[in-house]
């Protein structure tokens, strides 16, 4: 197909053609960046927690009034939950992955260091690793012999503290790149603790920097049943609902005067943590679809106009021997040229927008696959949109050439 006549004809419609190109370019730039943002959010929402997610449930409670001997009551609660059929492990922990509320500390490798090595979150409790189903990939798991009572820690004014900890692999890799963390020592303030094991993952309860999401320490410490602490229960996926009900009932039997703040499966914990990201994805998808529809309708509208305007011209071409297919291809090629120019401008614009986003939101550079996919998408949309006007053009009979309008 000779494109020279098409270009000549487009020269007569410079402004309109430019507008189509502009619209396609803007659509391309916005859609590329939106889809990139969507993929970033999806990656984020699927980030590993290190938890056996389909086996874990959380119950958060609070007592009314200050009650004495929180340690004994924790033991009683844990024993009662352990007795429920199907419970594999149960722990009382100060915090839960993706649970938002967190306790964090700065970590040093040398007590005389002036600036901290990093900031990590501290999971405190007994059997936390087993109850969460976190995987130990180096060294050993924590045992009951490692546990120290929180009440003892406080009474001793921090002179008696747990001697060992397990840390997540993200944190281990940051502190000792390429080395084994097992046997190394970290300092919380000036208190040394030895790393005895490394977890594949254990995500923070609350993430403000995605690079440090996997910086977690598990401290073997029996804590008391104080308001806001969490019972973490591990059970078979099918038993979760039943175990949750029975555990809540058991806790209510021990102390009817307590409030259940949260009772949910880990699936819900994750869902709630990422709810804003999910809304954002919905919005981005909605805008992309609306953009493509508006652009497509614009092409249909303009195409119909051009066809109506050129009816006589088309009739003359048909009378001079052009086939229907020739006419159809003419309009399809015209659309392809405009779309291609639009896509080229749009890809450049997409990188401009991406540059701005990189400055204000922690976003990486847009990979080339996105503009490429955007190009294919817009070519398809453009061809689909122009099909109807082009078919109408092809249906113009040669006799039109002989009629005067």
């Amino acid at each position, binding site marked *: 197909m000779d494109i020279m006549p098409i270009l000549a004809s487009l020269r007569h419609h410079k402004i*309109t053609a430019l507008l189509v190109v502009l619209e396609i370019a803007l659509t391309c730039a916005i859609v590329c960046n939106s889809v990139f943002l969507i993929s970033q959010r999806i990656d984020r929402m699927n980030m590993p927690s290190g938890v056996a997610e389909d086996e874990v449930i959380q119950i958060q409670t609070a007592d009314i009034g*200050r009650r004495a001997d929180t340690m004994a009551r924790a033991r009683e609660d844990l024993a009662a939950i352990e007795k429920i059929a199907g419970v594999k492990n149960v722990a009382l922990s100060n915090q839960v992955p993706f649970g938002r509320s967190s306790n964090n500390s700065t970590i040093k490798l040398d007590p005389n260091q002036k600036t901290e090595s990093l900031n990590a979150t501290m999971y405190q409790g007994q059997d936390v690793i087993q109850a969460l189903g976190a995987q130990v990939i180096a060294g050993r798991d924590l045992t009951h012999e490692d546990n120290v009572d929180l009440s003892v820690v406080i009474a001793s004014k921090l002179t008696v503290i747990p001697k060992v900890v397990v840390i997540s692999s993200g944190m281990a890799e940051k502190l000792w790149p390429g080395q084994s963390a097992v046997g190394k020592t970290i300092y919380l303030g000036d208190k040394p603790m030895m790393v005895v094991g490394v977890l594949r993952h254990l995500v923070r309860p609350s993430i403000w920097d995605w690079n440090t999401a996997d910086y977690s320490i598990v401290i073997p410490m029996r804590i008391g049943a104080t308001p806001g602490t969490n019972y973490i229960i591990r059970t078979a996926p099918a038993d979760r609902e039943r175990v949750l009900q029975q555990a809540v009932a058991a806790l209510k039997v021990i102390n009817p005067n307590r409030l259940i703040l949260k009772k949910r499966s880990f699936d819900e914990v994750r869902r709630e943590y990422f709810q804003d990201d999910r809304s954002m994805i919905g919005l981005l998808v909605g805008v992309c679809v609306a953009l493509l529809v508006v652009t497509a309708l614009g092409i249909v509208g303009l195409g119909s106009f051009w066809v109506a305007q050129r009816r006589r011209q088309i009739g003359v071409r048909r009378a001079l021997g052009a086939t229907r297919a020739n006419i159809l291809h003419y309009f399809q090629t015209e659309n392809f040229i405009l779309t291609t120019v639009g896509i080229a401008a749009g890809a450049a614009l997409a990188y401009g927008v991406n540059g701005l986003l990189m400055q204000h939101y922690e976003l990486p550079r847009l990979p080339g696959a996105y503009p490429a996919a955007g190009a294919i998408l817009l070519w398809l949309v453009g061809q689909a949109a122009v099909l109807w006007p082009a078919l109408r053009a092809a249906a113009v009979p040669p006799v039109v050439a002989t009629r005067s309008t």
Partner: protein
Amino acid sequence: MFAYNLEMALRSLKRNRALTLLMVLAIALGIGASMTTLTVLHVLSGDPIPESSAQLYYPQLDPRDMDGYTSTSKPPDQLSYPDGMALLKAARGTHQALMTGGAVPIQPAQSGIEPFIEDARYTTADFFPMFNVPFIFGHAWASTEDAAKARVVVITRELNDKIFNGKDSTGQSLRVNGHDLRIVGVIDNWRPNPHFYDLNMSTFSEKENVFVPLFTARDLLLERNGSSDCWGNNGNDGEHMETSDCVWLQFWVQLDSPAKAADYKEFLVHYSQEQKALGRFQRPPNVQLRNVIEWLDYNKVVPGDVRLQVWLALGFLVVCLVNTVGLMLAKFLRRASELGVRRALGASRRVIFTQLLVEAGLVGLVGGLGGLLLSLLGLWLVRLQPSDYASLARLDLPMLLATFVLAVSATLVAGMLPAWRACQVVPALQLKSN
């Protein structure tokens, strides 16, 4: 003349119903999306306390040790207990209050209501006059009751409705975490957004229904909410917060003139120097004194996603407008012969231009109406979202007017180019052929 233009415009729009519908729809979608996101931004970046936001200041000091010190370190976002008490006792402002957030279990005496947890604010007495908190029953507690650790409490209308069926409950007692506190006042609906005085809590959805004097709350060891940052080696266990090296309190001071604010900043520097001389502070004086709006900006309270959504919607609006410009251009040029005849019959360019703009404005007006409906739908969708600011997303009068102004002016600007282009038609050329 305008009526004539309007009639011509209507005729022309009717001639191409599908195209008109397409233009109106594109404008409506673009306006609807833009207004939805702009309304959310407008609500979230509003002034929470417009009558006095310029007089309310949030002092920051740096009491930390030299660990991690750099000359560009920012002072912590909260105050330690000794510093908060010092600023409170200095009483240099018209009002000042020291506070922190918390949560308390409430056990209503009425048998029908199960115990429940309420968010609470533990504060000194000036909180109420300083923030102009309206009371429906009773009054705030007095400073003397702060010092006496009086067992008193102020509750909100919402809680009063829930427990006392809206009757005047002052003088009655409320069982808070196992202690009886005497209700001295019930405050009316008062919910500044963002929750500027304590940004550690959820910024937009915070609803504190219980107010307890700070020292009473500490005396009763009521559960605290919010963040605490500690340094040095003494950990904090919640019970010894007064003596630990931790920042965990918010302090607000009312300073009625810029001169007083400058004096106050001077005072903060002197205080820091004095504390350093005493050996309590180790870092050089590093103070900040921000008013409400500056404090909100500093803390970037508007979520980044909300700004991103606004840009996205505006980008979408631009595409919709470009789309409309293209369609209008094609449409106006199609009528070149008609316009040519009118020009030949003596219509000036200005008349033609005005007529075409009326047509564009009409599309904008109808599009704006559609956009308004779509933004109501959009805001309803936003309110269904779980975000903490969702319930605030409502269209107010200024935004409603803005919708129309934006829609009509955007379409008029969009109509400018096609109308101008159509006016360039040479009458003779159009009359010659056909």
